[in-house]
């Protein structure tokens, strides 16, 4: 374990947060989903889960965009040490570094507006075009945007909210506190002997097994029969989502879930489990608020999901 990764709680040691884990895994299996937003109460392990997930799937921490990042570091610039010697050597930005993998923004609702605009542009077109400081560069980029936020500290612009394929409303589950405490304190102990700790070795083994399952799911393509596609459209319509992105996300997410569970075909049950993740932040007229409650659950029941 390297110095950089030594302090991260293993993914398999994270108690609860099943919806968070589901959303991250779906986005990993189906990158077309376009990203995950984890919005919820403070102290619920959002950041920890994202970083642990990245470690589990790629054995490295995610490319992270800090909230005070400057534009040159986001889109790329020049190496200053080379410039001092009169040479123009480009320095890749964070967006390029995240190409093909995960770009993580912690406290995404505190991000500088100017950087948000850049993200919006790149995530909607898939192209980063840089014309500044004598540089002319056009890159095709694909990354999974993962953001975490505490809504008490302010909302997210609706345009940026829409860029996230899936959204999870993260809450504390008081009954899980005991187990969470136990695991975190055990991890504290294990950090004193990271290379020999039985706890860490067991978690590492579980992580490897999980990764194997997710990698296999990436190769599968469960069938999406017409009745399921009809249900996607009807559900998105009745929930009241804007545009077509809702039903597309629903279909892809359900397929990814079926793949993770080794199913040959997507079932209504898969739709039910991914529906809140795919639709709750897209409800028409919500103005950035998250709407999912009894009324929406009733619609799922009426549709037989």
């Amino acid at each position, binding site marked *: 374990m390297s110095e*950089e990764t030594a*302090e*991260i709680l293993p993914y398999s040691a994270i108690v609860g947060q099943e919806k968070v884990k589901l959303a991250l895994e779906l986005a990993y299996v189906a990158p077309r989903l376009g990203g995950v937003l984890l919005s919820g*109460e*403070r*102290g*619920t*392990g959002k950041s920890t889960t994202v970083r642990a997930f990245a470690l589990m799937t790629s054995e490295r*921490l995610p490319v*992270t*965009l*800090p*909230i*005070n*990042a*400057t*534009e040159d*570091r*986001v889109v790329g*610039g*020049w*190496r*200053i*040490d080379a*410039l*001092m*010697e*009169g*040479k*123009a050597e480009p*320095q890749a930005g*964070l967006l390029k570094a995240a190409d093909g993998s995960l770009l993580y923004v912690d*406290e995404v*609702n*505190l991000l*500088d*507006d*100017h950087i948000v*605009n850049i993200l919006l542009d790149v995530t909607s077109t898939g192209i980063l075009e840089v014309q*500044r*400081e004598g540089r002319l560069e056009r890159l095709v980029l694909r990354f999974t945007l993962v953001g975490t936020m*505490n809504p*008490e*500290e*302010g*909302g997210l612009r609706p345009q940026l909210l829409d860029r996230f394929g899936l959204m999870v409303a993260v*809450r*504390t589950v008081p009954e899980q*506190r*005991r187990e*969470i*405490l*136990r695991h975190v*304190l*055990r991890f*504290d*102990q294990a950090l*004193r002997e990271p290379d020999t700790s039985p706890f860490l070795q067991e978690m590492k083994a579980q992580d490897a097994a999980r990764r194997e399952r997710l990698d296999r799911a990436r190769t599968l393509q469960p069938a999406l029969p017409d009745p399921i596609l009809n249900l996607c459209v009807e559900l998105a319509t009745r929930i009241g989502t804007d545009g077509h992105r809702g039903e597309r996300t629903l279909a892809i997410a359900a397929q990814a879930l079926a793949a993770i569970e080794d199913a040959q075909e997507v079932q209504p049950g898969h739709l039910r489990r991914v529906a809140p993740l795919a639709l709750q932040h897209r409800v028409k007229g919500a103005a*950035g*608020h998250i709407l999912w409650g009894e009324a929406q659950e009733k619609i799922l029941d009426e549709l037989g999901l």
Partner: protein
Amino acid sequence: MNRTSSPAASWQAALWVLAASSLHPGLRRVLVFDASAEDLETVAAAVKVMLEAATASAVSRVTLAPFHDEDDLWGIGEGLPAGWHRPGLLVPSNGLEGWRLIVIPDLTVLSLPAARSALQLLEADLGRLERHGQSRSWQPRLSWLAACPSSAIGQISPHLLDRFPVRLQAGVWRPGDHVAHLREWLSNSGLSQDPQVETTQGLEEALRQSTARNLPPLTAEAIEETINLLIPWEAPGVRRHLGLARLAQALSCLSGNAETLPDQIREAASLMKYFRTESVKKRSTSPDTSNPATVADPASAEMEHSTSSTGSVQPGDQPGSLAPGPELPIDTPSVAGEEQTEEVALSLSPFPEDHAPVERFAAPLQLAREDSPQRARRGGATAGVRRTADPAEVAPVPTLFAAAPFQLLRRNRRGVKDAPFIVTAADWRARRRAPSPEDLFVLVLDFTACGESDWHVTLIPYIREAYVRRSAVCLVLVGAAGAPCELRAERVLARSILAPEVLAALNRERGRATPLASGLELARETIRDAQYRGRGAILRTQLVVLSDGRGNISLEASRTARFSGPVGSQGITDTLQAAARLATLDQVESVVLDPQPLHASHLVKELADTLEARITKIPWRDPTLEASA
């Protein structure tokens, strides 16, 4: 460890807590309430010594000032010649470096860039820097010590406060006897003449020995005790539970124990002032069921407090660090009417933010929107740097720093080796400022007066005006259901009328009491504070009061949060006096929205006259009802 509450013993207990927090990396974030500048220096000196013992490395110290901006915090000019490079206060220099103690003398005046930076680093196991050509990641070796007046905790984002697991109350380190306190201060003895002498007496050595030991694991019963002890102060997540458990573990380690038991959990809770023992003279009375307020509020029972510790609970204390929690009676037998003395463990909250009224704008950690007109105005505090195409906005120093790396390249391309500094439009930078509105919209909304009136419609023109003027917003809610304290008005601050919190506040339901005097006082405080904010001061205030003038809670009841019975006309008298004080403020345009009450309608005119406000009638929702009234 001695749990007695004499000031000296309290200070010793605090030293143990500081030692434990130095030992455990997850605890190196300490928040001290109500510390004087001298107290904080003493604590900082103690922490530095103990951190050096715990980490076996040198500890340097950094103090964050209210003017520190992003360049100060994160550094600038890395890669540029030595004269240009300025290392950041929060970033390690290249090469090996020991621990840094970050001291924040007052969290309430921390700059926005510093608060945002603290948010990134406070719990981070990995620091990230991506600014102006700098790209680094490192394991932060930062220990944090912050101070804050408990009465002002409502000004700070809970998102930030949540990241301080160790809390200490400085007030108990000083004698309650003011004469003794004055004598001590005059003799300049301070808490400790030589903090090193205090801490090296056992603690330093204990720290060194403890670093070689494993942390004593918590038993299942200890975990259970942690959960149970925090029930009165439950908050989202598990940070508080982890903080308490880790503190107990660290204390247990210092004491050389093999396990951390429930007793150590209670000990840790006691050291952080979760509990305090007081001698209470209590006169037993029959419960008064006629007034729900007196039955529900234990503080309203006749009590005379005497305590051997400082910072005793006094009538009139604001909810804060001394907000009383559940009582744990030790000696219970009592006879009606008989005065008895009981030893009672009163639980106090190390989390005053849970009870404090909100005194901050919504979304306090966000930067101003790029398209906000407030951005370009007179200039609030610096919150960073941005590109600009407007030469009138150019800030010379950031622009020069942006141009510096390109000098050699530009000179070579122009074939002029000795050219002066070459700056192009691409280098232009301007200061990003914190939002600084010139207008303030204050709405005092009396929910108990709204009745049948169509007040939403009547408010529209004022809300529209607040939007057009990009006014800062203050909503004072009087008599709203679900208020933390029914006897007090609440306040919602927002940077704009579009903030979701504004809509949520306007949609509250009607409550029971009408603390109108408290509401007007809150409005006056807000306006006065906004008018005296230096460069960011408000120039104009629009005050809208929607009420029938029938306050039924006296100002005294609001201040003490104790309702001792019907107040007669005192509520109205206090309302008018508060209105008279409000009317003395300059640059305030006032209007009273009259809901046309069926009874005592003259009070609306009296209120308006006292406020020197004009009156606008609110039509009733049902015009037939209005006509028949």
